[in-house]
């Protein structure tokens, strides 16, 4: 690679790095550093203090246990789901694809209440005695993260050339054998990408662990939250944040190594028109996916919809009519519809930021420089942009407050800037955008680019002719994900949002925190609206994708 091209790629990387530096590394680093300084000098005694408590070891162990179980089940159940929803076709598939994404954005407090209502003593599933158990937490984690696996793996699988697997079948391999020895190895990059995201989401799950697990199942995340927001013990919180970063680093290291062993250029088909109908031979994945869809996804959502239609006077749409009000006795400052408007506006901005930044990162990371230092730089860049998924929203939220007053010595106060809300949401969405685009970009045969360059195309022309057509298909997925993250984000938003311009999850949280059947009913109805909006956005993103991809052929 020539020096000039190096400079070019450096400039492309500079924009996302500046973004992440200002809105993630600086705030998080400042807060953690505050925990390690006593009277202006470095004080690391917090480590000894925190690690001498047996509770610390227990919560570190519990964090690993919960995240591992959540990831194993989400991946194990999600791969058949990706096959059924993205590799085969059937009537109503578009709807099923959209619906599995809905749990991803539901407010944790609503899901927590919905799960506990089913599981608590006296509830419909109370006889199972699952309330307050690890099983309940893991089930909820799978509920939230199933769609991450289905969409990340499915989006990749849909474009995998089926001929290799067909050849194996022709040569006499049974379907399971062909899958294990041909298809699965090709899917490894997408599976590890999904698994690492799910693991980080599970490891930093907060509300759901508190509500379903009580203090017995505390994790590093819940402990950081309690130490920071209740005890103001930044020493302990900083130690735990470092532990969290080490965990994240280890997970990214392991998944990166697994991916690199497998990653190579694959035959990607231009369109996903080659999908066969779901047939009798697909009974195993179809049954698994049907069961997951019915029991784990549809049942909690259905109970949510039914409860939103109940009032003290029987079945009615009254809770939905009330969304145009400010709640029982006016507990809100605006109507729920106004909050929906705020959410959508914020999500547009957050999505635009996340897609631009994420696409730039994916583009840089998908390069394969020949030099070892170049490869190492790219691996580091790849990992750094995943960090926000593994770091506590409390650390980021509090970090904004102390770091963004005159950041870098500039005379500006970013702490009260309106744009901080979409920016904070974009920071969380960028890793998902990167992970949606990267498997496709990396699977593009570099010889295509080399050939184009050899024929005299400029780097920009190479990108247009080779990368862009492939990426555009994954772009719909990425946009949908980013939009969903923004719509559902609660942690960082709750610290930053202005109370007179709340987003939908904030309003739901407020309503469900008040007594009275009317407020609870409105919170549930608002959650159904949020779910419906998400499903609609996902459907649009899905439909837009193949249409534009086909148009260019």
């Amino acid at each position, binding site marked *: 690679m020539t020096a000039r091209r190096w400079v070019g790629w450096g400039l492309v990387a500079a924009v996302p790095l500046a973004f992440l530096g200002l809105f993630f590394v600086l705030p998080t680093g400042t807060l953690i550093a505050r925990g390690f300084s006593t009277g202006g000098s470095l004080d690391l005694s917090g480590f000894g203090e925190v690690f001498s408590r047996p509770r610390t070891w227990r919560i570190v162990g519990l964090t690993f246990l919960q995240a591992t179980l959540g990831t194993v089940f989400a991946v194990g159940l999600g791969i058949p789901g990706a096959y059924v929803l993205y590799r085969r076709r059937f009537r109503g598939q578009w709807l099923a694809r959209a619906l599995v994404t809905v749990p991803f954005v539901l407010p944790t407090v609503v899901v927590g209440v919905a799960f506990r209502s089913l599981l608590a003593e006296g509830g419909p599933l109370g006889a199972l005695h699952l309330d307050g158990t690890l099983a309940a937490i893991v089930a909820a984690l799978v509920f939230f993260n199933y769609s991450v696996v289905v969409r990340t793996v499915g989006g990749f699988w849909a474009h995998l050339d089926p001929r290799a697997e067909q050849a194996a079948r022709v040569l006499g391999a049974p379907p399971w054998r062909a899958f294990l020895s041909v298809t699965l190895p090709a899917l490894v990059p997408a599976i590890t990408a999904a698994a690492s995201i799910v693991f980080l989401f599970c490891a930093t799950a907060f509300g759901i662990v*508190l*509500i379903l697990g009580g*203090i017995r199942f505390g994790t590093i995340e819940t402990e950081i939250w309690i130490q920071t927001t*209740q005890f103001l013990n930044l020493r302990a919180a900083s130690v735990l944040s470092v532990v969290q970063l080490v965990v994240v680093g280890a997970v990214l290291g392991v998944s990166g190594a697994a991916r690199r062993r497998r990653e190579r250029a694959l035959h990607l088909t231009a369109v996903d028109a080659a999908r066969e109908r779901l047939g009798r031979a697909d009974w195993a994945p179809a049954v698994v996916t049907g069961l997951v869809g019915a029991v784990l996804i549809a049942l909690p959502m259905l109970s949510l919809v039914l409860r939103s239609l109940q009032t003290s006077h029987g079945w009615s749409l009254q809770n939905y009519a009330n969304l145009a009000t400010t709640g029982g006795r006016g507990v809100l400052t605006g109507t729920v519809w106004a909050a929906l408007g705020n959410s959508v*506006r914020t999500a547009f901005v957050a999505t635009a930021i996340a897609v631009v930044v994420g696409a730039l990162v994916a583009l840089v990371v998908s390069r394969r420089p020949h030099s070892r230092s170049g490869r190492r730089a790219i691996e580091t860049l790849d990992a750094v942009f995943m960090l926000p998924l593994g770091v506590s929203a409390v650390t980021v939220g509090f970090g904004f407050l102390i770091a963004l007053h005159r950041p870098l010595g500039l005379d500006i106060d970013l702490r*009260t800037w309106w744009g901080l809300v979409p920016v904070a949401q974009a920071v969380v969405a960028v890793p998902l955008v990167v992970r949606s685009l990267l498997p496709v970009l990396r699977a593009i045969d570099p010889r295509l680019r080399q050939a184009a360059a050899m024929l005299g195309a400029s780097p920009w022309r190479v990108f247009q002719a080779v990368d862009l057509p492939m990426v555009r298909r994954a772009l719909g997925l990425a946009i949908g994900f980013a939009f969903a993250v923004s719509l559902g984000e609660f942690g960082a938003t*709750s610290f930053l949002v202005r109370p007179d*311009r709340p987003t939908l999850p904030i309003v739901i949280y407020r309503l469900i925190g008040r*007594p009275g059947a009317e407020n*609870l009913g409105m919170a549930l109805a608002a959650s159904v609206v949020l779910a419906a909006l998400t499903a609609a956005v996902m459907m649009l993103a899905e439909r837009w994708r193949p249409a534009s991809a086909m148009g260019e052929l």
Partner: protein
Amino acid sequence: MARRLASLAAVAALALTLSACTSGGQAKPSSTGGASGSISAGARGTVVLVTHDSFVISDALIAEFKLKTGYTLEQRAPGDVGVLVNQLVLTKDAPIGDVTFGIDNTFASRAVSNGVLAAYRSPAEGTSAAKFDLDSSNNLTPIDYGDVCVNVDHGWFSAKGIPEPVTLADLAKPAYKDLLAVENPATSSPGLAFMLATVSAFGADGWQGYWSQLKTNGVKIDAGWTDAYTVDFSGSSGKGSRPLVVSYASSPPDEVPAGGTTAPTGALLDTCFRQVEYAGVLAGAKNPAGAKAFIDFMLGDSFQAALPGAMYVYPVSSSVKVPDTWATFAPIPSSPFSMDPAQIDKNRDGWIQKWTDTVIG
């Protein structure tokens, strides 16, 4: 190719337009910051209020404040009272606002001892309000109060023919086994208040023993008010399985159906802990005059009268009337438990640790 580029450009243009719309729409209010701005006749700039996420003020009251004082109110609400106080402490060198509301007696000492507040004695603070003063330093001005009490589902007890419990000690009796749900004091403000009630009632030597008895008696520990009240409590619309829950003295009126004359739930008035919420001028505020004006306004009749409806608390001013339903369904406990805020601040973390050891194990 040309068509593809055109469609890409259109998408980009749309995104830009949308973000421009949003920025235009949202940037305006915050660009008027600072006391010096004189936008129109009578306008005197912005007062920034930093409060907790349960704070509610109607647009009508904001307009009235502006009409009376000339200041525009801008709000920030970073989280619950713990988040609020801790953020004020962390930003005390460059405060994010002018005035704060919502610091209660369980967190007041942390705010005061960290020098977050500037002293101010409001001329609007009457004798009925002054009874709730934190101390003589005038760092914090009382605005409202409420009581955290065990709530009871009347219907459940009358159907079973069991007399309702009355005191904290009753809750540990075998007759009330597996009937009570409480919140974890480490993660919940009413949970913390209820733990303090038990410390106050049974003393530093006895309260842990009491909690051991509650544990033997099958107390259910929840993370927060929402899941305790809406999932486990039988008296809410969630129709849970436990007829006793730690909530507020002001919760019962909201369970009365429209037009109802009897309340299906009630508060056990001998189990209550008094919470007082304060307002204060932030030290280093850009607009201290505006901050003081807002504290005066909060003590005025129109704001005080709106408190029960909007925030489920009682006004400190005796010159306003509480709603009729409150007089009937939410009587005020005559002698709730309380505790010196300095003592709370000194012992809170240690007590929560001991509570965790006793109850969670």
